């Protein structure tokens, strides 16, 4: 059992760079078993194989263990695409349409890394025109502790490992061994407690009416069962404005019947456009 744990830790470290050394092995084993049980996997070697081959598994496992793996600019490629392609196009289109408002929803925002990242991009793109724009970024999560942390805006360096130095310099101030996000960015994002699976509303309450230009729902729906997943996706379709974009996690995708509402913008980065 402990040999298995050792292999697993090694594999997980290879994939995510996260060390599990400091955790109680028995606790870890219980959690791994829990995960294996929910997958219906009995053999340890099978689970190791899944961990190696299935892209989202490491993350789910970490989540099962209770480790939040969110980072600023996690999967930097997506943010590059947003910075150089999607956001400029969006801004340009909106300018053309004389509708200088951008509405973004980060569904499952954890400790705010994702909405802050996108806020940073928008801030750096708009810079001195920021005041001309009505920017609404909504970060929602079901975990109130995460939201408190998000509103607090204090992050240790592991969360910033993908953050460009320029952004770090411009938008964070060192605070002890940690970094605090500057208030300009913090004020751009609105955090609220929201259960994605609720049937009471479609969009987060704080957003009043949805109509989002962008919805990030990365690595969230993997935790729900198929039925709930469909319901959530339906809600997202409703909250997106026409031509709005949906970003899913790298291991997620849309089924062909779900693609009816979307066209694929970027296959690799799971960016979909409401059509």
């Amino acid at each position: 059992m402990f040999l298995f744990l050792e292999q697993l830790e090694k594999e997980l470290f290879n994939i995510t760079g996260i060390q599990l050394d400091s955790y109680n092995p028995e606790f870890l084993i219980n959690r791994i078993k829990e995960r294996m049980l929910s997958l219906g996997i009995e053999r340890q070697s099978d689970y190791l194989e899944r961990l190696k081959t299935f892209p989202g598994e490491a993350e789910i496992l970490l989540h099962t263990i209770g480790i939040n793996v969110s980072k600023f600019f996690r999967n930097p490629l997506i943010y590059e695409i947003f910075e150089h392609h999607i956001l400029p196009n969006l801004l340009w289109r909106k300018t053309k349409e004389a509708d200088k408002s951008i509405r973004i929803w980060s569904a499952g925002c954890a400790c705010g890394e994702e909405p802050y990242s996108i806020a940073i991009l928008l801030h750096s793109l708009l810079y001195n025109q920021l005041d001309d724009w009505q920017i609404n970024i909504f970060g929602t999560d079901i975990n109130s502790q995460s939201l408190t942390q998000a509103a607090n805006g204090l992050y240790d360096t592991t969360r910033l490992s993908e953050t460009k130095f320029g952004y770090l310099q411009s938008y964070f101030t060192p605070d002890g061994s940690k970094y605090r996000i500057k208030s300009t960015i913090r004020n751009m994002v609105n955090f609220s407690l929201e259960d994605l699976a609720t049937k009471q509303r479609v969009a987060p309450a704080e957003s009043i009416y949805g109509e989002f230009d962008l919805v990030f729902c990365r690595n969230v729906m993997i935790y729900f069962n198929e039925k709930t997943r469909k319901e959530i996706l339906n809600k997202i379709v409703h909250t997106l404005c026409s031509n709005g974009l949906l970003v899913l996690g790298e291991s997620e995708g849309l089924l062909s019947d779900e693609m009816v509402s979307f066209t694929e913008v970027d296959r690799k980065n799971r960016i979909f456009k409401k059509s």
Partner: protein
Amino acid sequence: MDFFNKYSVKLRVTLLMLLFIILITSLGLFTLQRISILHDLTDTLYNHPLQVSNAALRAKTGVIRMHRSMKDVALSNSQLELDLAINRVQDDEKLVYEDLATVRTLILGEEGQKLVNETIQMFAGWKPIRMEVEQLVIEGKKIPAARITREKGADYVAMLERQMNELTSYAHGKADGFIMNARETHSDIRDKMIWIIFIVSVICLASAFIVIGGITRSVHTLQEKMAESVTKGKLEKVDMPGSNEFTVLAKHFNTLVTTIEEQLQTSKYINDLNHILTGDKELSELYHHIISFITRTVNGCASAIYHFDEQKELCTLRAQFASIERVKPSETFKLGEGGIGQVALERSPLRIDNIGSSDVQVKSATYQQSPVSIYTVPIVFDQKILAVLEIAFLNPITSSQQQFIDQAANSIGGVLNSALQNTRIKQLLLESQEANKLLEVKSSEVGDKNEELNALNKELKAQATELQVQKNELEIQRNQVERADRLKSEFLSNMSHELRTPLNSILSLSQLLISKGVDKDIITSNEYIHVIDRNGRQLLHLINDILDLTKIESGKMELYPEEFSLDNLLVELKDTVSPLAARKNLQISFSQQEPVTLNSDRDKIRQILLNLLSNAIKFSETGTIQLETDSREGNLTFHVKDEGMGISETDQKLIFNEFTQVDGSFTRSHDGTGLGLAICTKLAALLGGTISLSSELGVGSIFSLTIPLMLTGNNSTFTPNTATSHNYAGNMDGRNTILVIDDDEHDRAEISALLNQSGYRAVEAPSGKTGLNLAKEMKPNLISLDLVMPGMDGWEALQMLKSDPATTAIPVIITSQIEEEETSRALGAAGCIQKPIDKDDFLSKIEEISGQGKIQSILVVDDDLGVRQYFKDILVENGYSVDQAQNGAVALEKYRQSQPDLIVLDLIMPVMDGFSFLKKLEANSSNDIPPVIVVTSKDLSHDDLNNLTGTAETFTKQKLDKQVFLKTVAKVLNESNGEVRKPLQSDKSAILVVDDNEVAGEQIQIVLEEHDFDVMLARDGEQALKFIEQRIPDGIVLDLMMPKIDGFGVLESIRSGGETAEIPVLVLTAKEITIEERQLLTNNNVHQLIQKGATDRDQLAASVLRMVEPERMQADDTASFDSRKNTILVVEDNKDNRFTVQAIFKNEGFNLVFAEDGQAGIDYAYKYSPDLILMDIQLPDLSGIDAMKQLKSDSKMDQIPIIALTAKAMKGDREELLAEGFDDYAPKPINPDELIAKVKNWLKAEG
């Protein structure tokens, strides 16, 4: 048993069945008869003994009764008794006689009859005794009567009784006899029946066995024979005489066997024949074999075979079998001649039977006879006749013989063919051997000639190649010429388009101005003139480009070399292109390795780089534009990189050519003449350098300019570098000027550079004094002021600036080593920045302070110094510059001096109050009244409010909320934004939005304002209630969960007040509503309840609209359309041209719809169904021609007249466009009157 075979199975089975039926019927009849016998017996059994004994018994009792009555007679005491007794005796006597009569009729047998007769006699014998007794009694001699009765009578009666008993027993005995009889009859019947059934069964079985046996035997025989044939492969016939179904079957079977045997025999013969014919045989031998085998096999008496020569069409005798006594068989037959010729002609066999006596005889040693029949067959292979075979028979030919001959002829065909071929090959071989010998002799002669020919051939080939090369070259040249020609005309056409597009606006608008007059509508005219001006400049720019090109081409371009630093050039370039890039959200990055000094023509280099950079910006949508420099070996290379759309390899070669743009077609999406790069290349060449390009589609392009550091071949005169002091000349180009006052040269330069890079124009002052002077002189938009300076320090300078009316409005940012924010603000500075300066902070501060590049000034008019000071404090704190006036008169004076952006006005003041001030203001000034916010302690009457229409907002002093006030100020300023202030529309509905969440409130506000509501925001219940006290809104959007006073609280307090009780309220909440809460809401007259996040923008607005202005719900976006007017769709990509068209049709009474490209044009056509379409030809993406064609191809749209608008006015264009399908054509520049006339004409025709 074979005897039965004569009869058919059907007959046999029928007979059998008939027999069965007869037997069974007889059996039944017999049984019936026996049953009736038994029945008779039973009847007798019942009737005789029973009735006889019964009657006897009754007679007996009668006798006894008579005897008793006789006793009564004897003993009777009276006449009456006697008479009664005698009557009884007589009655009984009658009965007894009746019974005895019955017995006599029924009783059987003689003995019985005798017994009965005796009994009757005996009974009759008793009568005299009774008579005697009666007589005695009558005589009265009772005792002798009684004695006679007792003695004689009793004896008689006893005798009669015995007789009666005898009768009964006789009857019984007789009955027993009957039963015995019946039993015998029964057993007799049973025995007979058993026998009969046995016999019938035996007969049935026997006959069935015989019949079925007959059938099965036949089947069995057949089956056995067939099984034998199948399993053993030995065909055997069935011997079955008779004439029934089976014998017929057997006969057929036999026929089948015979046929198969014959076929087997035939194929065996064929096999034998094939066997005989195999192997290489001489043709004659073969013929012989064939004929002898076949004739023998079929028992022919004689035969002959003829070879058929196809070319000669002649049959020749080749072999014969047995001699035929005749003249001799003919050696040859022509085609169609005789039997042989006929068969060869028809290719089908010929059979002749019943030949009578003839002279043809078959002869043997001992016998001689004429043949009876002849059979002639063709031998065919592969559709060709090879030979004809004829066989004669002494008997009539059987079909099997014929069949065999036919088959044999078939297989002979193949063999004969190969034999014939072989013979022919042999013959050819001989011939070719001879010919070869002849050839050998000739070939040696030819060999010599061949060499000569080869040499000649080579020479010819070389010439042909040369010709081909020349032809190819010519072809290339021709293509080049054609291409150049095409490009030239394309260029001309483009150029004419480029020249005409601005000209169009210029001419059309100026014509409009001429015809409609300038002074009627100054603002519109002004707009026209601006457009004319802009287009004029563009035209100038174009013409300059063309002139440049011509100048270079004609060698008239002169160079002015000078020595200059690269840094300087780069800064200037960056200054120029940054705003362009910023407009497209592109990043600009310039990097330089080391300081370089050049000696070259600075302006030309600048021109080239500027062109490359602006191209990069023009063709990029995202990314960074980079300029990198790289100097080596006396050359300097500039790389201009972009992340734009890139250029394909084929296009890379073209774009440096003049007249070319990558996309020269109708659907160009980028403006430009296509001359820029051509000019650049030529300029670079002039400077002794080159321009190169590397690019990848979709990735980006790098244009590289390489020029020598020293321009050679020129007497370059050294010109000192004076460029550092350029562009300090104040606010000339519309950029905001910022005065930088700092004693430290390094700091000053840094700040200036920073500002210049960011689109400002920095002016430097090295000391406070110079700064003050410059500030007065230049009126900069902002001042950056250092604190620590020798002489006059920053604080002093700030004080001077703020105390001088000329400079007091200029916001000042203090730059300092230490944090002095509060002190700075207290002394009137707009903010403070700590050194070393953080670029972003500094810039954002400037942005923040200057708003849209302009500090907004506010005039506060109030007689109360304290109030003035309060407003000044809070306004200055928020970056406004504030001027004050203590009454209306002073305010008017100040207003004339400084034209504030906003006025905060008290109403009650000495000298001139607020109302009069407003009136004066309106009367005195032209259009340009700034917005006014009224702040008063007066309770405003209805009239007051009427007088105040036109002011932006009204606040009551006592309830003034600082944040709300500031927001209002910002909002009002934002709305007016330097433009003419529109008077506040008093007909707008006012909605109060109550939400503690700022973001939520703002969003609701945005939506509602989009839908033309006047929106007020309250952050909590308390504030909401305050608001409502000041002004009763037309509707309220209410959140439920709020601190202190929540939504329910607000509702209750609203509903309790008389005036507010009826305000419609929409509850917008994220709360899950309980039933009680819902009840509470309903009770408080809330009809709309919307869950936050469960609605969308339009729904939200519609809900509010429905609540507040239900009548507005009907109006939709076509409201601005007057349905009585004709609608014209204008598809035009050029903004100025759209403006021009709009100006032309202004006041002409049309609804105008504009589309910017072809696709939008189509969409709008469907959306608005216009009465006419004006279509530009050169449109981005989808050209006007294609858009027109799409519309014309739809039967719903093809009725709409489409008029082409184009600046391309080449010869024949009109015809071409009409041929494409346009209904009409209007050339640019547009003549307004002509176009209007044309449009009206078409619309009239439309009807």
